[in-house]
């Protein structure tokens, strides 16, 4: 059994705020849900499946969120694997719809790390309850930036990847962000700007890192017959894959991500190849994240990611693989420190032909959204979703 063609994405919404000092997290969940319902042409009581991540829903996660939103559903799922949670949940929602467990599924994400003054990337984050590995990691002060930096350092050592090549990822994102009025960073930057920005954690500079922003987003999936009764352009899910990757009992290899497993699963289910993908949303917590995931998804050979992203190859209208045409996490938005949901949103905009005209990909019939939740430097969950127009 497959999810191919069994579920459509009928509603999307990205909250326009990037600094939510005047809103609670649950207000944001409600606003993004309302936004996606309006986009789809549905009402709250149509929802019979609800997905959110425990990490960004206060209280006892999903139960409190369902209570606050006033949802009555027959399917719930609060899988939380960090920023890629919402990509997994698109696959899980499609599975639930394919099995008839629900017919209209809502996914919400919201958070306000910026309003709370969180030093997301540079401050070591200790979990409230120790995890099994905590004693063997926390004393060394792992933050987000220095974990991804260790992956970048090893990739450079092993494959000759350069800071200038990584910088091209940010340059491409900035070219797209200039057209997005909601983007946090709209100035076009150069390779020199990136490599001359302050070093955060060697070899990653300030401009190799994504923004810290508040806000959120929502996605609504529906069964085919419902999707076809609505007035929005049709976008269907044709493949999904997910996989955790970790330290493998001490056989640590930071040069690849779980995309080496999630990607082939999604491509096989969809029956398409990387060369068929007209637009890709690639989780860009850091520039290295994009380079490594593009390699692992098969858009180029392993180790050639730095070369692949260079010279504007990710810029819409310029390069071979337009990516993150909303400006991505590097320039637009990284709500709640979780970039997976907005990756799906921009891919749907592209398939609908509703991206900004300056970055809209011509004849965009197949799009991919992929993310890494957790850390490339320790353990993470990769998730790939492939979508098709019509």
């Amino acid at each position: 059994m497959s999810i191919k063609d069994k579920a459509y994405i009928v509603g999307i919404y990205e909250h326009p705020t990037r600094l939510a000092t005047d809103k609670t997290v649950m207000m944001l969940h409600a606003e993004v849900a309302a936004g996606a319902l309006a986009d789809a042409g549905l009402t709250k009581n149509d929802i019979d499946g609800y997905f959110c991540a425990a990490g960004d829903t206060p209280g006892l996660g999903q139960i409190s969120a369902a209570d606050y939103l006033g949802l009555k559903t027959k399917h719930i799922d609060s899988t939380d694997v960090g920023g890629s949670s919402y990509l997994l949940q698109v696959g899980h929602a499609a599975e639930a719809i394919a099995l008839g467990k629900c017919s209209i599924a809502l996914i919400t994400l919201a958070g306000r790390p910026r309003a709370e003054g969180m030093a997301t990337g540079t401050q070591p984050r200790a979990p409230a309850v120790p995890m099994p590995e905590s004693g063997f990691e926390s004393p060394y002060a792992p933050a987000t930036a220095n974990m991804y930096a260790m992956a970048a350092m090893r990739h450079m050592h092993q494959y000759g990847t350069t800071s200038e090549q990584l910088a091209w990822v940010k340059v491409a994102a900035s070219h797209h962000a200039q057209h997005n009025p909601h983007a946090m960073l709209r100035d076009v930057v150069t390779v020199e700007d990136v490599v001359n920005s302050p070093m955060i954690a060697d070899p990653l500079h300030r401009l190799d890192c994504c923004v810290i922003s508040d806000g959120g987003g929502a996605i609504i999936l529906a069964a085919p017959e419902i999707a076809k009764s609505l007035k929005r352009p049709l976008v269907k899910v044709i493949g999904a894959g997910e996989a955790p990757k970790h330290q493998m009992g001490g056989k640590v290899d930071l040069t690849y991500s779980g995309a080496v497993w999630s990607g082939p699963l999604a491509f096989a289910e969809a029956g398409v190849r990387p060369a068929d993908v007209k637009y890709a949303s690639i989780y860009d917590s850091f520039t290295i994240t994009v380079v490594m995931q593009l390699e692992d998804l098969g858009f180029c050979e392993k180790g050639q990611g730095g070369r692949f992203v260079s010279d504007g190859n990710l810029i819409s209208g310029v390069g071979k693989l337009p990516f993150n045409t909303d400006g991505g996490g590097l320039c637009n938005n990284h709500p709640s420190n979780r970039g997976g949901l907005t990756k799906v949103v921009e891919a749907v905009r592209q398939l609908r032909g509703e991206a900004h005209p300056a970055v809209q990909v011509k004849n965009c019939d197949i799009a991919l959204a992929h993310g890494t939740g957790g850390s490339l430097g320790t353990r993470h969950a990769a998730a790939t979703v492939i979508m098709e127009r019509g």
Partner: protein
Amino acid sequence: MAERKISTPAVNLETQPFWDAAAQGKLLIKKCTACGEPHFYPRSHCPFCFSDKTEWAEASGKGTVYTYSVMRRAPIPYAIAYVTLAEGPTMMTNIVDCDLDSIEIGQAVRLVFKPSEGGPPVPMFTPA
């Protein structure tokens, strides 16, 4: 130069022997007596063959830097790293007591212990 304060490691009943040994200046890893594979971090069941016949083994304290990064945006910059032990497993650690700009991948390092803020000392590495 001021030294970074090292947070107290989370110790549980499964890892108590590791930290008791650390207090004696010894670095322990776990080895599976069924398949022979050593692993890190130490746990009850072998993550390779899933046997519960794992036993503690003292590591030599010799290793090489697999990767590292110097955190510049900290009150006191520090080097986080993965070090591959001579016995095989690779572990997260800090590289200490050296010029942070001189650290290199592949560099030989040796074990040292640094006091934590109130718990057992923590295994770290310095250039050999």
